[in-house]
């Protein structure tokens, strides 16, 4: 079959962590053609974002927009919250990495998979087991705010199954197994009996209670001993798997016993039992070989899960082992626990003090309150909510001298959502954010904040001291101090703590295992000017494990990590991919009339009483294409499916409809069946008969049965009418040019060109100036001290010496024709004759520069300069800090307010860098920084702290209290409102430095000639700011660098790598079958009215003047069908939804 014979690149990779960046990395690698094993410790993928129903800036959910589009056959086109399924990705849930050996290009990884007692192949998600389960667990998905059972779907969206069992909480009562209709549950109960625990304690009561809990409830074999001597006797005679030893015992003490016991049985696990007073001893016992300790008095709720966890740890067999060429770590971060430390906000003590993630769940319609804005403690409607920002971040005492990057934005978002919910109920709500700096860095942050404030969110710059709960009213009383130290008290119904990040212990452990460097805090270190390259070759880091990222940054990092992995696999020639089994070719049934084979799975009797093949075929007897109707059994098993395939083959049918349960509805099963019966997968329809059933009417089981029958029948009928008109044609192959045009020779452009060239594709690098390097040519150093000139030199020389890159300096793109896959652009160098190049994709790295301003006396005096001028002076040794008595900086000069209402991300860091440069060289100099919100996001915060310590004076201003500047003979005078003193201050400076921000280079005309676009501020417009941050809306056109979004050098590099990878994916599709489920044109019906071109949001349709036809770019079309409904002639249609099929389905649906 054509689709299978596509030659895949060799090689495979492993991605550890199934959050956004992990998924992005996995999808990019998979789309490039590599095999990916995606490891996730939790029981579902999606990471943090799976808990967020609303994402800034649209406040809806857009996670599905990360899927590669159109081709339903290799990636399942469904809501990502329900699961991810891609032909080249193997997802291993509840799995972790045990060990890694080998070298880059060829690692051997041993995994350990936590067995799920629920067989995913059999679980149909019927839900019968949930009500019978006696164990209530605080649902981790709902941040512990709602209860769930020990068995059930991992997230509400995965209600269709497969379920999972929380093995630590499960008491193995077996009730679920009794009710499971498909025998999907296999509790490993018998095994626990063969696990022997020896309890050694001198107190009878402890021995008795432990044997009761562990033996009767836990199902383990428990033996006891009252002293060390007795215990050793037992050990001599009997093998013991786990020993629990009391530390304080008369006679032989616990520690001595531990040592002696381990002499007898070296491999045995030991846990110490200790009172609070002797925890130190227990900890030291762990150095002598104890695995853990338990503190008396025991809480049986905690004890059993702990022992069960230990049991799993000891009994889980390692495996499977995989071989991969590259490893991407995307393990994320942990959430700060505000109850640790002094806990001034009473978290966990006051019920109505919740964390940001918990409030996020309260806003969800599948959350603990069903999306209603009520208090958890007393169901009172929420009318006053406070957000407290920077809880556990920007806090040197809590060892968190960093900013968590996302909390400001999510708090603003939550406030907006709360306002919206209240508006819908016609209620008024107070939403107040207590903040230090509102870090709305990036392209649209400031506008979002303005909108939130306009809708009623109040941003109050204050420090919160404490929260107390009023006895009688239940109100929360928040004491805070504003910038001038004024104390105030306010009452609220709920307080949301915007909790920060903590490095994940698991990631740190993995980093140690891989031998890669982490910083002292525990976040993974990356190389200079890179967000994703770790110190180890072949090991990349993506997403929050290098410091927390918002969605767009996580997506870019995921792609950037995929890029490095892909480049490595490509360079190695890739040789580790398991060859996919040679595909049998699908039969060509183009000329045959449809013959539909229909089978319904009896589901071990559950369906057979309802569905009757005879009556069903009687009902459809007028349909000549209905070939046969049968019932089958156990289609969820391999044997059952093989039997069915045999029947289908023998019948000679050429289309298939199957009614079954969820396990059969996964694409792999469909594909396997398609192969077995030699039909294209689109000729097979599988209907999930069990999930969408009518509401139960308990009183009348007969009625219920009849309703179910009716539903089943019409759903099958609709499927038959769909499939009989399915198009059996093979997809044509795609042709795409094998080179890329990169516009802009700054760091982003150079990186992008190198990226595609390293993958073996040609790159034309076009630069307007006479020299490559862009802004690197005047930049000096990063704040960390990394040498920018060296970066420029090295990158330039790599570009110049790369055989696949052609450089055109002094050159502009004057015209572009064509569309994704086949562009022809005209280039003009100086005054020479224009020439044209052909290319399959384009990367716009048009860059930008420092903005100019007229504010703050700029242009009136030579002592009023910009950060760029200051940087150049430092670079050229033209600035002597010793000569400076006083230097003042004003940040956000002309930005973050209309008409330039965006944050440029880099100016605060630059200001800190220069302030420190002067202050550290000349501590006597007065250095003043007038700022609005210090955007020292992420680890830049430490530099902010350092600058304050060094004596740099920071004065906050607001647009209303903007400082005034007057240049005088002796100095530049700056008058500003000092918020702490609450009065005006005057600064006399030798030098006033303005941070004017980034302005994108004018690129609107260029972008439009490629079919792309720019936004109101002149930045290139992304296809989707969060989920497709480096793609433009034009097919085959990508963007990166600061022409796309304000960014630091490392961030620009990452976006360039991400863009390069998207281009590589696009070019790699050459000679492969086009996606099938896209829009098409029936030229005989087409009147060339071009309404479809106007309706297409993706520019996928074009009028081709040569052939005088409307043509569809198969790579650009996403298969939405907007063109089909715009077409007045039924000429445009979406494959799979052609009018004939729709109408015949409608007729089936309308059939009474």
């Amino acid at each position, binding site marked *: 079959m054509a689709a299978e014979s596509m030659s895949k690149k060799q090689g495979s990779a492993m991605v550890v962590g199934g959050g956004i960046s992990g998924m992005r990395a996995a999808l990019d690698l998979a789309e490039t053609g590599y095999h990916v094993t995606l490891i996730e410790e939790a029981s579902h993928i999606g990471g943090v974002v799976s808990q967020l*129903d609303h994402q800034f800036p*649209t*406040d*809806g*959910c*857009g996670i*599905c*927009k990360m899927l590669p589009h159109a081709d339903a056959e290799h990636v399942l*086109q*469904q*809501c990502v*919250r*329900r699961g991810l399924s891609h032909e080249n990705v193997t997802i291993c849930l509840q799995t972790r990495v045990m060990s890694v050996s080998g070298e880059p290009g060829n690692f051997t990884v041993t995994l350990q998979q936590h067995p799920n007692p629920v067989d995913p192949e059999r679980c149909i*998600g019927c*839900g019968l087991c949930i009500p019978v389960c006696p164990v209530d667990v605080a649902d981790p998905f709902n941040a512990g705010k709602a209860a769930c059972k020990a068995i059930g*779907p991992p997230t*509400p*969206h995965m*209600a*269709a*199954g497969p379920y999972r069992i929380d093995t630590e909480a499960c008491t193995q009562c077996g009730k679920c197994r009794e009710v499971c209709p498909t025998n999907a549950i296999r509790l490993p109960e018998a095994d626990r009996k063969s696990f022997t625990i020896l309890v050694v304690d001198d107190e009878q009561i402890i021995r008795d209670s432990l044997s009761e809990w562990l033996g009767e409830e836990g199902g383990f074999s428990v033996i006891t001993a009252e002293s060390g001597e007795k215990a050793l006797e037992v050990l001599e005679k009997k093998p013991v798997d786990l020993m629990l030893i009391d530390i304080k015992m008369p006679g032989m003490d616990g520690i001595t016993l531990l040592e002696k016991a381990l002499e007898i049985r070296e491999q045995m696990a030991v846990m110490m039992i200790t009172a609070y007073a002797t925890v130190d001893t227990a900890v030291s016992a762990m150095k002598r070989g104890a695995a853990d300790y338990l503190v008396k008095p025991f809480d049986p709720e905690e004890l059993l899960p702990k022992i069960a966890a230990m049991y799993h740890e000891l009994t889980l067999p390692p495996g499977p082992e995989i071989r991969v060429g590259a490893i991407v770590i995307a393990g994320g971060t942990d959430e700060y626990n505000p109850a640790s430390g002094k806990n001034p906000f009473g978290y966990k003590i006051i019920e109505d003090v919740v964390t940001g993630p918990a409030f996020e769940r309260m806003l*969800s*319609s*599948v959350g603990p309150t*069903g999306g209603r804005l009520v208090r958890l403690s007393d169901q009172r409607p929420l009318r006053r909510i406070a957000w407290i920002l920077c809880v556990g971040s920007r806090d040197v005492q809590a060892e968190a001298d960093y900013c968590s990057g996302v909390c400001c934005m999510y708090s603003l978002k939550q406030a907006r959502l709360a306002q919206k919910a209240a508006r819908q109920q016609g209620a008024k709500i107070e939403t107040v954010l207590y903040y230090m700096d509102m870090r709305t860095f990036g392209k649209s942050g400031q506008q979002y904040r303005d909108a939130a404030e306009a809708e009623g969110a109040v941003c109050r710059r204050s420090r919160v001291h404490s929260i107390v709960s009023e006895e009688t009213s239940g109100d929360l009383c928040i004491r805070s101090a504003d910038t001038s130290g004024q104390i105030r008290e306010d009452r609220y119904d709920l307080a949301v703590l915007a909790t920060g990040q903590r490095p994940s212990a698991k990631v740190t452990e993995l980093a140690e295992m891989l031998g890669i460097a982490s910083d002292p805090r525990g976040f993974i270190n990356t190389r200079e000017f890179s967000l994703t390259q770790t110190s180890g070759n072949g090991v990349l880091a993506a997403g929050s494990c290098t410091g927390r990222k918002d969605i767009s940054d996580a997506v870019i990092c995921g792609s950037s990590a995929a890029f490095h992995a892909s480049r490595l696999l490509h360079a190695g020639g890739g040789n580790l991919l398991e060859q996919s089994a040679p595909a049998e070719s699908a039969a060509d049934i183009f000329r045959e009339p449809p013959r539909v084979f229909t089978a319904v799975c009896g589901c071990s009797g559950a369906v057979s009483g309802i569905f009757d093949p005879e009556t069903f075929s009687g009902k459809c007897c007028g349909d000549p294409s209905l070939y046969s109707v049968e019932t089958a059994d156990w289609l969820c098993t391999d044997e059952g499916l093989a039997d069915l395939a045999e029947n289908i083959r023998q019948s000679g049918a050429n289309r298939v409809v199957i009614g079954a349960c969820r396990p059969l509805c996964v694409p792999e099963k469909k594909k396997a069946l398609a192969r077995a019966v030699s039909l294209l997968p689109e000729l097979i329809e599988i209907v999930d008969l069990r*999930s*969408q*059933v*009518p*509401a*139960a009417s308990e009183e009348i089981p007969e009625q219920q049965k009849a*309703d*179910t029958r*009716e*539903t089943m029948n*019409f759903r099958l009928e*609709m499927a038959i009418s769909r499939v009989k008109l399915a198009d059996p044609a093979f997809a044509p192959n795609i042709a795409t040019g094998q080179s890329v045009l990169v516009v802009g020779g700054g760091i982003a452009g150079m990186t992008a060109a190198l990226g595609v060239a390293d993958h073996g594709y040609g790159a034309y690098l076009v630069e307007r100036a006479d020299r490559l390097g862009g802004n690197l040519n005047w930049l000096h150093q990063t704040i960390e001290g990394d040498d920018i000139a060296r970066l420029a030199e090295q990158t330039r020389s790599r570009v110049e010496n790369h055989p696949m890159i052609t450089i055109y300096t002094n050159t502009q793109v004057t015209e572009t024709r064509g569309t994704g896959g086949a562009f022809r652009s005209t280039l003009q160098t100086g005054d020479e004759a224009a020439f044209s190049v052909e290319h399959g994709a384009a990367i716009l790295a048009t860059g930008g520069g420092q903005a100019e301003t007229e504010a703050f006396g700029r242009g009136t005096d030579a002592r009023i300069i910009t950060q760029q001028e200051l940087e150049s002076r430092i670079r050229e040794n033209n600035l002597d800090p010793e000569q400076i008595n006083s230097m003042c900086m004003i940040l956000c000069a002309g930005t973050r307010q209309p008409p330039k209402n965006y944050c440029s991300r880099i100016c605060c860091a630059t200001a800190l860098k220069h302030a420190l440069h002067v202050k550290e060289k000349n501590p006597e100099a007065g250095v003043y920084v007038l700022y609005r919100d210090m955007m020292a996001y992420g680890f830049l915060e430490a530099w902010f702290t350092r600058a304050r310590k060094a004596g740099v004076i920071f004065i906050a201003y607001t647009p209303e209290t903007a400082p005034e500047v007057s240049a005088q003979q002796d100095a530049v005078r700056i008058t500003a409102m000092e918020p702490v003193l609450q009065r005006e201050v005057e600064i006399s400076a030798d030098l006033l430095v303005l941070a004017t921000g980034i302005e994108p280079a004018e690129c609107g005309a260029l972008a439009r000639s490629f079919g792309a676009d720019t936004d109101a501020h002149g930045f290139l417009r992304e296809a989707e700011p969060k989920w497709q941050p480096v793609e433009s809306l034009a097919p085959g056109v990508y963007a990166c660098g600061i022409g796309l979004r304000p960014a630091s050098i490392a961030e620009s590099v990452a976006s360039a790598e991400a863009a390069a990878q998207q281009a590589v994916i696009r070019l790699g599709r050459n000679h492969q079958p086009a996606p099938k489920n896209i829009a098409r044109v029936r030229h005989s019906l087409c009147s060339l009215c071009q309404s479809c071109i106007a*309706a297409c*949001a*993706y520019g996928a349709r074009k009028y081709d003047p040569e052939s005088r036809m409307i043509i569809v770019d198969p790579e650009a079309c*996403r*298969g*939405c*069908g*907007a063109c*089909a*409904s*715009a077409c007045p002639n*039924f000429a445009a249609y*979406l494959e799979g*939804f052609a*009018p004939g099929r*729709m*109408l015949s*389905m*409608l*007729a089936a*649906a*309308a059939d*009474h």
Partner: protein
Amino acid sequence: MEEQFDPVIVAFVCNWCTYTASDLAGTSRLGYPKNIRLIRVMCTGMVDTQYIFKAFLEGVDGVLVSGCHPGDCHYINGNFKARRRMKLLKTILPQFGIAENRLRLTWIGASDGIAFAETMQRLVDQIRELGPNPARLQNVI
């Protein structure tokens, strides 16, 4: 007791949001009335007015078009296209003897399983009140 009128309602639901919600409703055992016949489409923006006419002419008592919330459409703005189209259609339907409130447009997000079940129940009740589609009784055109 007089036999209750059992309307037939065709629901065009978009693959990304409302279909997911219907799945969520179905699999979380909330269930929804059997009167609803779901037709999954990729996006509400692809629902051609001709399908809606066809449904009514086939005798369907109500038609629902339901997709992602504004701003959430997987295909940028398909739901806006649908909104425009439905508004227009509602003005035309009465000319064919079909009450405009037999056609309904809603936004139901992927997580809104409960909302889906509730909306469906409400819709069935409302259409039941309207009685059978006259096209079912006599041929309008």
